[in-house]
């Protein structure tokens, strides 16, 4: 058991960082070069002002007409994304690991808040799961891959929550937690989780087209 722990905490973590950072850079840079080579016009239309205008309207809750028409989905997806990003970065136990390894530390969330935020992520994943099952227009376009990436995203939070509360054998849960976290990070560049990076560019381009060429709002 100790051996597995040492492995996932040590070498596998390095592999994860290399795959996550390297893979993400590869996706972004290769797309940049492909666009430069074959769709260079995209860059001539990009406008900082209209990119930001578009991004802002879509990262502020209820700033777009579509979000206002779907209040539950809007609240759930904003809560989900905020908790998903903030919890792992500001979790005390994670910061302690950073501190032990790199002597880096920063402000931490109180544990009880982090606990709630993990539950929010899990709850949102359940919501998304049932949304895929129930809404015909979502079910129609859902494939196994959609459930897999939902599971990949939910797993670190479920295992982390269980490990923290130590309801099930702690060591096993901790190893599963680290493994699932590593899986998620490594999956980001190579699955549709890559929308984490692409979002900014697709929005910027659509925003620039709508703002700069079409003089219309895209929200």
């Amino acid at each position, binding site marked *: 058991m100790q051996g597995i722990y040492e492995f996932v905490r040590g070498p596998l973590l390095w592999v994860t960082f290399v795959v996550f950072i390297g893979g993400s850079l590869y996706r972004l840079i290769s797309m940049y070069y492909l666009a430069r080579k074959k769709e260079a*016009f995209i860059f001539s239309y990009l406008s900082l002002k209209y990119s930001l205008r578009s991004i802002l309207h*879509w990262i502020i809750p209820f700033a777009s007409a579509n979000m206002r028409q779907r209040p539950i989905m809007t609240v759930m997806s904003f809560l989900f994304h905020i908790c998903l990003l903030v919890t792992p970065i500001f979790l005390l136990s994670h910061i302690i690991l950073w501190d032990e390894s790199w002597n880096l530390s920063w402000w931490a969330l109180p544990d009880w808040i982090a606990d709630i935020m993990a539950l929010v992520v899990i709850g949102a994943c359940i919501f998304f799961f049932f949304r895929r099952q129930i809404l015909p227009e979502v*079910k129609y376009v859902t*494939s196994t891959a959609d459930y897999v990436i939902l599971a990949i995203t939910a797993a670190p939070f479920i295992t982390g929550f269980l490990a923290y509360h130590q309801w099930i054998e702690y060591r096993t849960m901790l190893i599963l937690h680290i493994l699932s976290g590593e899986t998620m990070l490594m999956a980001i560049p190579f699955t549709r989780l890559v*929308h984490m990076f*692409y979002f900014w560019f697709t929005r910027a381009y659509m925003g620039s087209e709508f703002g700069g060429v*079409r003089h219309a709002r895209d929200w």
Partner: protein
Amino acid sequence: MAVPATKLKEKKEIIDVGLEEGAARLTYEKIEQVINRVITGEMAARMKVYVDTCIHCGMCSTACHYYLSHGTPEWAPVGKVKQTMWEILEKKGKVSPEFIKRASIIASTECNVCRRCSMYCPYGIDIAYIMATVRRICHLLGVTPQYIQDTAHSHSATMNQMWVKEDEWIDTLQWQEGEAQAELPSLRIALDKEGADIMYSVIGPEPKFRAQLIYQAAILMTAAGVDWTMPAGPGWDNSDMAMFTGDFEIMGRVKRTHFEAAANLRVKKIVMGECGHAFRSVYDVGNRWLGWKMPPIPVIHATQFYYELLKEGKIKIARKLKEPVTLHDPCNIVRGRGLHEMMRYLVNATCENFVEMYPNREQNHCCCAGGGVINCGPPWKTKRVESNSIKAEQLAATGVHICIAPCHNCHGGLDDIINTYKLNMHTMFFIDVLMKTMEIPDSLKA
């Protein structure tokens, strides 16, 4: 037991010779070869990023009038992408002729490329671009609905959409000039006048079916004292169905001819009649295909031209329309050019009682005729009208009898909806409204 006639009607498959015969000529090898040529040669970062980013959330569905009218998932924008592009990419082009036929039906008759869904997608994925690419593939495979293919042939052979011959074009203009001179004796429709300020261009269907619009434009130009001209030869038609079939090579030829006509006449700008798709072609799509970031010669849509004439005091309103009116925002000049506020200025300047329809401006529901769908012709008419009951509801809710729609395709689509759903309404162009409301200087009158 006999099936009730209504059931039979519902189940009846629409037969389109262009699709049937096109698909019959296909082989698996040809399909795979053409698709891979498009994937490697024409698609690049945009398509990859769009397909990889789409998280299958279905939030685009309520943007689409087809989905809002039918309510089932295969009509949602992402549902249509799933049935076409995802499958094409996943199978790397190994799809059947039957699949291509179905893809052509979806892309050409179940999507108006109105871009409302692009505005509803949280990522801003250009779904209209994806559907246009499906049309492009179908075009290269020769599987395009027959009626719209015929208009593309006409563009190719005559540089106009309606097989109008050069003498017929000139004759039509002279006929309208003669008619209009009965009203304003000094009126001229000057052909090929070099150095005029403005080249006025129209779509092929104007001389063919709606020649009175040219008459009215001539009255407006004369009353406003504008120095204008129209080309006598090719280039007079600004329309472009090749853009909608995915025949970008023809599109490029047609657009180049249009710009060259203006360049040869050394005009300062092009003013286009009240047409939406033509504006999209000249301002957004065709110019880019030719390598121009923006049109090489300034192009303005008729509504913007009227707005400027009113603002500058070149035309004056003598009496406003008393009847309540509503305004339909055409996709290609609103989501495509943001002319919605100028149009509202025009409505308020010319009409006493303006009733907004909801949603409006960029959020307006499509007419379901644009994007080449009405041009797919009679076989598809019933489906097109049934697929836009949401528009009928939106129009009916205004409770008015006049709908201003500054776009030819919108007119056709809205008229069919109004007739089918018995809405007791009629459509008007802005020029129709101006003819009833603007002041004609006494010095010009007969």
